[in-house]
């Protein structure tokens, strides 16, 4: 590991003052479950690591007038065990519970989940975000069973965020702070597909850090997340779907369907969601929405199966949200 300076500020202002104009100057450390392995494997290096776990303002889950405020250093375990989350936001609760192992859930944070880097094995093996060799991506003719089926090229990795799809579906916003002020970004716009190799998968500048996540009230919004992963034990998802259904009586007024681990960002299936308006959720309408959600998929040589998995995840998430089946995140 390249030597670096470590600082552990107690206040947000102090932390912001320690950040730099590029990530090679300074980077934020929270749970460390991703950053430390990136640094140990030599995929990433920086001059300064700024630990934010001691900043009290960045913790805690509170109800606000408009919904829920989740501090960026809230751990997955805190999120999953919060009655506020479990009661009103089952999609977020399920998404947090599906993450890795108890050890990781005790360390990893909400902010870290949003800011973590892709798990693409070419990226982790040192071939860069676009997995390039000799000016050509290794992914299309390579080992791509875990890669993107939507939005692929030149980025074929999938967003590793487990909470992202649920936050997008719930219409959450993400608050970012820098020494020059703060700004708020819709979760749906926070995730971006980088256009160049050195870009980031999120709308975050090197001098900013995620301070909190604001989730609008979901009272009367039926929501669920369904995750499909190979191992029941600790594993990355192969595909997930998070749905939020704004109801009018027994029928859907407005729906949101967001797929996870199928694209370089959480992937909104807007047309499929629009098609649910005015309908009640049944096997049939859920299947139709699921079919529509994957209609534009462009699978690679080895990941056609993920189209099927994404479809099943959408259907089961819709049925779970409607209280009809599949409340578990894993079959």
């Amino acid at each position, binding site marked *: 590991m390249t030597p670096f300076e470590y600082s552990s500020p107690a206040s947000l202002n102090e932390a912001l003052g320690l950040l730099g104009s590029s990530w090679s100057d300074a980077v934020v450390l929270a749970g460390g479950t991703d950053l430390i392995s990136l640094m140990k494997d030599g995929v990433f290096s920086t001059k300064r690591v700024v630990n934010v776990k001691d900043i009290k303002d960045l913790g805690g889950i509170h109800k606000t007038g408009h919904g829920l405020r989740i501090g960026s250093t809230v751990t997955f375990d805190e999120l999953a065990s919060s009655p506020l989350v479990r009661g009103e936001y089952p999609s977020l609760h399920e998404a947090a519970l599906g993450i890795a192992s108890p050890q990781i859930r005790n360390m990893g944070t909400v902010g870290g989940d949003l800011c973590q880097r892709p798990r693409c*094995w070419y990226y982790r093996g040192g*071939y860069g975000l676009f997995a390039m060799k000799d000016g050509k991506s290794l992914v299309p*003719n*390579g080992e791509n069973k875990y890669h993107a089926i939507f939005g692929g090229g030149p980025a074929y990795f999938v967003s590793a965020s487990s909470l992202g799809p649920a936050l997008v579906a719930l219409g959450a916003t993400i608050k970012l702070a820098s020494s020059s002020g703060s700004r708020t970004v819709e979760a749906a716009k926070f995730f971006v597909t980088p256009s160049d190799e050195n870009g980031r998968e999120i709308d975050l500048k090197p001098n900013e850090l995620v301070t909190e996540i604001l989730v609008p009230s979901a009272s009367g919004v039926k929501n669920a997340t369904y995750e499909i992963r*190979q191992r029941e*034990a600790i594993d990355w998802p*192969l595909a997930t779907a998070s749905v939020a259904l704004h109801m009018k009586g027994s029928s859907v007024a407005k729906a949101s369907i967001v797929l996870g681990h199928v694209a370089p960002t959480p992937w909104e299936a807007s047309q499929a969601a629009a098609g649910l308006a005015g309908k009640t959720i049944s096997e049939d309408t859920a299947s139709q929405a699921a079919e529509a959600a994957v209609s534009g998929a462009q699978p690679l040589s080895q990941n056609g199966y993920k189209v*099927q998995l994404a479809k*099943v995840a959408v259907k089961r998430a819709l049925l779970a949200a409607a209280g009809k089946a599949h409340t578990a995140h894993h*079959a």
Partner: protein
Amino acid sequence: MPDTTTPNYHWPPMADRRVIGKSHSRLDGIQKASGAAKYNSDIKPAGMLFGAILTCPHAHARVTSIDTSEAEKIPGVTAVRVIMGPGKEVQWGGAEVASVSATSEEAANDAVKAIKVEYEELPFLVREDDISKAGNRAKAAGEQVTGDPDKAFQEAAYTHEGDYGIPVITHCCLESHGNVVAWEGDKLSLWPSTQNVSGIGGDLGRAINVSAANIHVHQDHIGGGFGSKFPADLWGVEAAELSKQSGGKPVKIFLDRKTELLIAGNRPSAFGHIKVAADKDGKITAWESKTWSTGGLAGGGLSADLFPYVYRKVPNRRINHTAISTNTGSARAWRAPNHEQVSYLTCSAIEDLAAKMKMDPLEVFLKNADLTMREEAYTSQLKKAAELADWKKNWHQRGDSGSGAVKRGLGIGVGTWGGAGHASQCQATIHPDGSVEVELGSQDLGTGTRTIIAMVAAETLGLPVSAINVKIGDSTYPPSGASGGSTTVGGVSSSTRKATVNALDKLFAAVAPSLGTTPDKLEAVDRRIVVKGDTSKSLTWEAACRKLGTNKISESGENNPRTAPREGLNTGGVAGVQIADVSVDTETGLVKMNRLIAVHDCGLIINPKTAESQIFGACIMSVCSALFEERVADQQIGRVLNPDMEFYKLAGIMDIGEIIVHLDISPENDKRGVIGLGEPPAIPGDAAIGNAVANAIGVRVPQLPLTADRVLAALASKGGNA
């Protein structure tokens, strides 16, 4: 007279045993569970230096230059060694190129990174699943023909042809390969992670030109070996040389997880086209296999003469095998080398043949039991496993599994193994204060060896297990074989039995006069030396030992594999049958283990508890390999992409399902003596799970592991995708 007649070493009759045959918790269980047990990867002798190895990132390359000057300048670095100098050809990714030692792990890792190596990249092959792309890397072995397969296939009532595959997987030892090595004068201490305490010193000595007598090996515990930890290896040599260059200070080299998965051994792949035929009654008449595999650069990989597996007496056979040389780390023995692969390919083809004949595969496996070498054993085990699985109730014709998305299925796998005891010597000492020591240069791989040695000694001496001080894991103890091939339990139990019988005979001779009898009239029961048939005449164990005065008794016992068969303490040759019960979600392609039922014959069981544990562990490994494990390599770049525990997947506890063990303990099996049980239960699981999935979803998933992509592709191929 006791001094001239051969002592009676036979195991006591089943009914008379007090210790053997009764479950005993392992002696080091609490230590291991609490973390008190020290593995050699845990130790830190005073002044210990950290070693690190620079590995080659390329699959095949020639070193054109290597510059260690920057590494040598890093503070704390004590030695830098070039393993592959300019002109040397590196044949697989992860191969060792240079090594360093330093006063901290960080400095050692920094130094490795500071070594500059220029390579000339050379052509490589890292994948063998498609034999048509192997070119001149493929070497066919000669065809073996028995009977008249062409005629038999022509005359057959049913013929099935299919393709099957099982990829390269690795050992994934929890404790990686490595060692700590230190010099003191011309003597060397080696703390390895080894399956071969008695032999590894000699292996290292040969490589560095040091007499084995000057190498002291010590190992209390090992965190998994599975066949991959016999030799001293290059990291042993490098640690010894780095230590020497650093004034003899201890040097620790344990491989990081990535290197462990790349170069510390793997199980060869097996792919093939199988053709199998039967007459109208389902009797198998002909077999043809065209298989290929890789065991790394040397090709090899598979003993194709094991086809057709277990059903050896199929009268007409044609066997072809091609070994493919790849630029990947070399294969090592993997818990029953060859057997999982040939079991998977054979049992899959038989199950598919049964489906084609619309016959119950249980009936087909039973009907053909006369084609095995142990008809009675397979017949009774198949029936027992079927009974435990409630086969009649739960089995259905292939694909006939109801209308829901989740389909349940059952499948059978079979196996066979040797497992006779290896050469082993034991020294048993009875001290005048009554304490007992039993010494063997053996090792406890986590199988419970320490415990069964104590149990055998306790049984013989009429003492509780806690009274026996077992000393293993040190090369100064009498030599005992490497733990491979399921040979340990037979070896150490026999040598311990003989040594303790010999020592007890000496004690009888010493105390007989004071009991007014002759030694042959004495027995050791419940901490007493008793005159047979007259319990009023006895001495406590301690009182008896005091009669030794100041002289301890120290007697040896030996298991010699050449003479062991006629002595009857241990033997080899077992059968095993497993039935898997799975549920498959046909919408997601996810396979869930319900149950894995394991029926094994095993001779005389010393400790049923650790014997069952062996089978549990083996079944878990089968679930891992059947459902999750594969080494993924990219032919574009010559790299293995998943040398980690993230995408090289092993089952977690939620994935394993219920494991039901039936040990075939019976007077007939008991008479055979002790037989090893490490390997046999690792064999049938892959086949059983694959067959259960085929039964559940109505179509064969030809290649392991049975991941969502493969299961869904198989379902799509039959048009049954939900």
